[in-house]
């Protein structure tokens, strides 16, 4: 059957008509594309106006149009508008095609003749294509009201609490033995200098005891299948070797355990823990875990001191890892960040010069619950520094390491300066490239630190060395820097150097992204759907990213994002079902030979091989519509709706004006 095509050319005021002869384009289409089925071609001042839409609706009804081409702006702007208009007139919305003659023609070219000629080609392509369009229906799927939150730092806790408080169930999964994240390691938080533990602990307890939250610590997600509304998640609950039913969290096992281990995680390598431990006193949950690698019993086969002394018999050396399977409708990723490894900047001497500290080390050093009970001392454990240098941008804003600004380091450096000043009275230098203290009450804090007498040197530190050139420098750390405001190189001897290390994506961010089907930016942070207008959603529906997993940010922003993602999740849950774009791939099993070439191509696990029938199948719910498998199938057995081979070939022919030539006999 021949299609009845209507072509509508928009002036967009003078936006298009100023450069493209729209009347000519419409006349040309009516005349030259008649063979293609164009029965009417009109031009109009603003097609997207309600009058413009009515024009199309009227033609559909009165002229019986079966296809519509609107030559106007980018489909990203008004595709929906015209599809809705078609739908209102009783035409399947997917039988409408937009030809972009504004963004791709009138706005980017100046010569009217050339622009008009190109506009004709673009319209010709769209007409050829639209004939091959097929009616499609949106796909509706129900939403499971449960939510998975991965990562129990402040962003994840906030997100979990918001959803749980709204009355829906949340699984909160955390890799470490306790929730709390990096914030639990900090002493004070800028700019208000609240005690970190004081504001965090109540939230942790709330999350730990909330009836709507299932807390799964010492656990990791190992597999994710399904799609928005219907994710099937596998979680590995690692063996704690503690029976959680019996453990009261009394702490006797830790006391009795004879094995001391350097705590690289919570204490940033500055302190010790036992082989059976809770990372810190306020840990949630309060059950300890046994560190199998270091436990004397697991290594040598004897000891069991913990078991002997446990009053409730909660120690269980035979516990095994457990696999849990849960179904959720939405997933929030709050997997946080890793601290930049300052050893990589070898000119700063971290790891070689004892009194060079990282920011996280300093957090523990200044923390009253830390290894020195909050005394700021050198690595010898006793000497109080008289001069302290704080170096900003360590590993950040540096093409040798990480390109981006880590956001928090300036404020962190100021906070450290204040703490050093307050606790030791030492002279403090801050070395910075640019002071970045945007946001509420931040610059005021900078002012306060200036007032306290901290010295600021504008210059990226060149090196920290112990090679003294004179008596004054002997036995100290010398910070060599160009004071760019004075235009002179300076060598400043200090006792302690604190590196304000940057934040970087988790070492396994790429794998985690793959697991959940989302992508990472070049820097390795999870990519949001839109950097400004959709910062917590991702390109994969039903998966949200919050906190530092999405990019470096401070506590207030992390909390805001956690709450924002929850709002999005609740929105989805309350809609009860979700509509998916019908751009999908499918396999014609009669043509599929089971060569399995497409099997390795789908990052969304939509492609499965049916061993019994020796054919491949595509799960339409998982399919995201990229079309890679369609293009890959060597047998031509896979086709894709919305962007079919026929549509695209027709569009190529149309763009090349092949549709104008008479059909060959």
């Amino acid at each position, binding site marked *: 059957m021949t299609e009845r095509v209507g072509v509508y050319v928009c002036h967009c005021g003078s936006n298009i008509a100023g450069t493209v002869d729209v009347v000519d384009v419409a006349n040309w289409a009516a005349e030259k594309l008649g063979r293609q089925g164009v029965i009417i071609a009109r031009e109009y001042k603003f097609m997207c106006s309600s009058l413009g839409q009515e024009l199309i609706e009227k033609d559909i009804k009165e002229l019986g149009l079966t296809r519509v081409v609107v030559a106007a702006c980018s489909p990203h702007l008004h595709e929906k508008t015209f599809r809705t208009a078609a739908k209102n007139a009783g035409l399947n919305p997917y039988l409408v095609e937009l030809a972009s003659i504004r963004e791709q023609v009138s706005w980017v070219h100046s010569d009217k003749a050339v622009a008009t000629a190109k506009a004709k080609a673009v319209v010709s392509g769209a007409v050829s294509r639209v004939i091959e369009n097929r009616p499609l229906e949106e796909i509706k799927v129900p939403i499971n009201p449960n939510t998975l939150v991965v990562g129990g730092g402040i962003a994840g806790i906030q997100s979990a609490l918001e959803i749980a408080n709204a009355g829906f169930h949340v699984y909160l999964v955390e890799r470490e033995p306790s929730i709390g994240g990096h914030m639990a390691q900090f002493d004070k938080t800028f700019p208000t200098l609240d005690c970190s533990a004081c504001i965090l602990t109540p939230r942790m307890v709330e999350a730990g005891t909330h009836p709507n939250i299932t807390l799964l610590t010492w656990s990791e997600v190992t597999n994710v299948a399904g799609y928005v509304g219907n994710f099937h998640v596998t979680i590995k609950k690692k063996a704690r070797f503690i029976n959680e039913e019996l453990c009261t969290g009394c702490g006797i096992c830790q006391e009795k355990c004879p094995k001391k281990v350097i705590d690289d995680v919570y204490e940033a390598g500055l302190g010790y823990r036992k082989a059976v431990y809770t990372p810190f006193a306020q840990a949630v949950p309060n059950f300890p875990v046994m560190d199998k690698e270091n436990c004397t019993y697991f290594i040598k086969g004897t000891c069991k001191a913990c078991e002997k002394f446990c009053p409730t018999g909660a120690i269980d050396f035979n516990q095994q890892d457990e696999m849990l399977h849960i179904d959720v409708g939405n997933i929030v990723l709050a997997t946080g960040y890793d601290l930049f490894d300052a050893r990589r900047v070898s000119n700063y001497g971290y790891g070689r010069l004892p009194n060079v500290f990282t920011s996280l080390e300093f957090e523990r050093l200044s923390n009253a619950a830390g290894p020195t009970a909050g005394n700021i001392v050198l690595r010898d454990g006793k000497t109080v520094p008289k001069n302290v240098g704080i170096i900003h941008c360590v590993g950040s804003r540096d093409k040798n390491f990480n390109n981006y600004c880590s956001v928090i380091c300036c404020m962190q450096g100021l906070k450290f300066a204040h703490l050093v000043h307050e606790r030791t009275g030492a002279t403090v230098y801050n070395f910075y490239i640019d002071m970045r203290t945007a946001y509420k009450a931040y610059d005021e804090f900078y002012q306060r630190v200036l007032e306290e007498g901290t010295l600021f040197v504008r210059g990226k530190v060149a090196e920290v060395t112990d090679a003294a050139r004179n008596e004054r420098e002997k036995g100290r750390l010398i910070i060599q820097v160009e004071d760019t405001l004075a235009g002179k190189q300076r060598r400043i001897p200090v006792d302690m150097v604190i590196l304000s290390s940057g934040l970087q994506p988790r070492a396994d961010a790429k794998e985690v992204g793959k697991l959940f089907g989302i992508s990472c930016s070049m820097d390795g942070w999870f990519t949001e759907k839109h950097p400004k207008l959709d910062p917590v959603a991702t390109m994969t529906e039903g998966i949200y990213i919050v906190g530092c997993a999405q990019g470096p940010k401070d506590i207030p922003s992390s909390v805001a994002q956690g709450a924002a993602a929850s709002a999005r999740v609740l929105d989805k849950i309350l809609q009860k079902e979700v509509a998916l774009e019908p751009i999908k791939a499918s396999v014609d099993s*009669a*043509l*599929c*030979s*089971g*060569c*399995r*070439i*497409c*099997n*390795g*191509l789908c990052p969304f696990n939509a492609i499965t*091989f049916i061993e019994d029938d*020796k054919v491949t199948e595509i799960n339409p719910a998982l399919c995201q519509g990229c079309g890679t498998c369609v*293009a*890959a*199938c*060597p*047998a*031509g*057995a896979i086709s894709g709706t919305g962007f079919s*081979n026929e549509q695209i*070939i027709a569009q190529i022919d149309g763009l090349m004006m092949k549709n104008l030539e008479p059909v060959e006999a």
Partner: protein
Amino acid sequence: MKPKFAMYWAASCGGCEIAVLNTHEKILDVDANFDVVFWPVAMDAKYHDVEAMEDGSILLTLFNGGIRNDENEHIAKLLRQKSKILVAFGSCACEGCIPGLANLSPVGDIVHTAFNTLTTDNPNEIYPRTSYDVPEGELHIPTLSRMVRPLEQVVDVDYFMPGCPPESHQIAAVIDLVIKVVKGEAELPPKGSVIGAGDSTVCDECPRARNVKFIKEFKRIQDVAPVDPALCLLEQGIPCNGPATRSGCNARCPQAGAQCIGCYGPAEGVMDYGARLITAFSSVIDANTPEEIDHILDGIPDPTGQVYRFNLAGSLLKANKEAWKVER
């Protein structure tokens, strides 16, 4: 009166004719059910006899070979005119086949290579001419065309029967079908169909085990030792054309331990065979950097020949850019 049958041999090797004979006693059915009016390899007949026939008087013509010269073209048009059912028989007629690879070079180069290279002793540089004066008058030698064309590019074709040559059991099946149609026991498939072959690809009939493929290195089969007899050849890094090649041969080559070279042409509905192989090979490459991918691709020494061995003349581009040029 028995319906009339014809078979013609244009630009091809003659293997298709042998394949027909390879149907063994089935050939007797042909004789029993048809009146063979024109089959130069099997019986004597003159072109003017065919020219004298009534249009549409031949029921079935199996035309093998591509169109390489004006004689081929003339007979193709002639047989089209005289036949009810014209079948492009075999890879050459369907898609150009090996003779079609000549389209990688300008025809002048081909003549030059044939008549004046190191292996040809032609000190006086004598080239053939298209017409000669002989006592009987002017003699015409067929003139080479610029490029090899499959039958479809010259005349309207009813059915396509792929294969180099078509498998004998498939030929037998087609003969049976036509006989049934003649007897009114069966219907002809829609015009333009591929007959005597499957719709899917060689993998469908290949018994080798297949898994998800991640290839770090392509190798020619002689460089793989030992070749796993039970595992997909592509999975072993051997560029096997099976995934893109139409089924119907019972995966003869892979079953015999060699990679499929693609003689049955593209699967149903495929526009360009080479494109399907490009995408098949590139999809199994396990590398992300251009350097590494290029390194892996180096393992396919002649990519154009690899993906268009049988299909060049029938592909979208049909011939090398140089071959399009008229002048030499």
